[in-house]
């Protein structure tokens, strides 16, 4: 079974990179003058050609005594058309209890299909609809890392920059927010192994970010060091709230608040965040989350960085300036 899962992953990825058109390129998450970076804990509000490789996190679980958990994940996103894209990713986890056994293995394969509802450049507003599928039984369910059942999560995403505030707002115009809300629907309502109900969960989160690149190029060039001008300080939050089929269990919201910073370059970005549990049910102590994220459309503008269908092979439209 394990070999079949490996082959499935390899085939899915091979198909993703096959038959790429040799046309011209377009953009990732630019909305007008605003660039929304790829956020680490939640998703940005655009379909894109990009890859997170790797995302690494370290945290201590909510168990008593707490176990130490390492997660190493990878995800690649590919536009099929200009407005429709898919992502595929997986995570390898290791959970080591104090003096107890160590569990390790892959989580379930996760795919996401996303459609760009809106990109309004003048208001720096983007909206996105997605369907996240966590494919049950494709991970290490025997060791408790993955679930044997599938979970569907229809999700709405948005991003809003505040560059459309009047000039008198000054430096506030460099702020932006993103958010997402999804409803997790498991394919089973009862876990026979755990002898527990499998709840339906509201998965929600977002970010507040301050763009130093935006400050420099749109508001005020303060002649700061170049490294500073590439930074986007950010606070992300990701939460889960059980809302249905949770009889006998707590309905408490769990999650983390992640203050950190993203350094944005021309071809890649690097992010580092602390993970602060919001309550005792969310974990013990402060964890760490880091990510290297590659802009495939900038690295490979004529191949992988193109939508599979309808790339901008035609000449761009002349502006009427």
């Amino acid at each position, binding site marked *: 079974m394990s070999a079949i899962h490996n082959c499935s992953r*390899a085939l899915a990825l091979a198909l993703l*990179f096959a038959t790429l058109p040799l046309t011209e390129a377009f*953009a990732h998450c*630019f909305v007008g*003058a605003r660039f929304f970076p790829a956020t680490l804990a939640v998703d940005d509000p655009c379909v894109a050609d990009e890859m997170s490789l*790797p995302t690494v996190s370290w945290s201590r679980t909510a168990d008593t005594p707490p176990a130490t958990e390492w997660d190493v994940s*990878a995800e690649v996103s590919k536009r099929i058309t200009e407005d429709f894209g898919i992502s595929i990713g997986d995570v*390898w986890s290791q959970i080591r209890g104090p003096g107890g056994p160590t569990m390790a293995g892959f989580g379930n394969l996760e795919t996401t299909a996303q459609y760009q509802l809106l990109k309004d450049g003048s208001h720096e507003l983007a909206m996105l609809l997605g369907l996240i599928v966590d494919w049950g039984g494709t991970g290490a369910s025997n060791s408790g890392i993955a679930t044997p059942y599938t979970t569907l999560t229809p999700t709405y995403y948005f991003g809003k920059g505040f560059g459309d505030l009047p000039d008198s707002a000054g430096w506030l115009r460099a702020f932006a927010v993103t958010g997402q809300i999804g409803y997790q629907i498991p394919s089973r309502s009862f876990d026979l192994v755990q002898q527990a109900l499998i709840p339906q969960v509201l998965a929600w989160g977002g970010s507040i970010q301050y763009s130093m690149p935006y400050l420099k190029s749109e508001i*005020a060039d303060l002649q700061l060091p170049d490294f500073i001008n590439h930074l986007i300080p950010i606070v992300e939050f990701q939460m889960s709230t059980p809302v249905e089929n949770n009889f006998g269990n707590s309905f408490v919201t769990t999650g983390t608040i992640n203050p950190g910073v993203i350094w944005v370059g021309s071809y890649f970005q690097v992010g580092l965040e602390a993970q602060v549990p919001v309550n005792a049910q969310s974990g013990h102590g402060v964890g760490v989350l880091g990510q290297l994220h590659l802009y495939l459309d900038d*690295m490979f503008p004529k191949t992988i960085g193109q939508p599979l269908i309808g790339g901008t092979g035609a000449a761009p439209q002349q502006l009427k300036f």
Partner: protein
Amino acid sequence: MRKFLTFVSLLLIPLAPVAARAHAFLDHASPLVGSTVATAPHEVVMTFTQNLEPAFSTAQVTDSSGARVDQGKAQVSGNTMTVGLKALGPGSYKVHWHALSVDTHSTEGAFTFHVGGR
């Protein structure tokens, strides 16, 4: 762990060396973005992080009433875009730019500079 390495190796396949280009960000401008200058400039010079396509990269400058105060089409050379200005009086001026990098990545933006006391 071996499975994870297989997965990562597959992901790395497309990362063979290529001649890369990227989006053209505004690196700096003269007058400086958001600055106040004592004497009116004769032109706005913008330097980008990538080379530009001259035919599709352009800029216009407007005064506080929205009237254009530039002298027409911007000149593009490499990663620099220059637009001439009419004689400016004291006041605030907005530069709107659109840049197409040589690999057709499109970016746009706007910034303000001020002449004389505000």
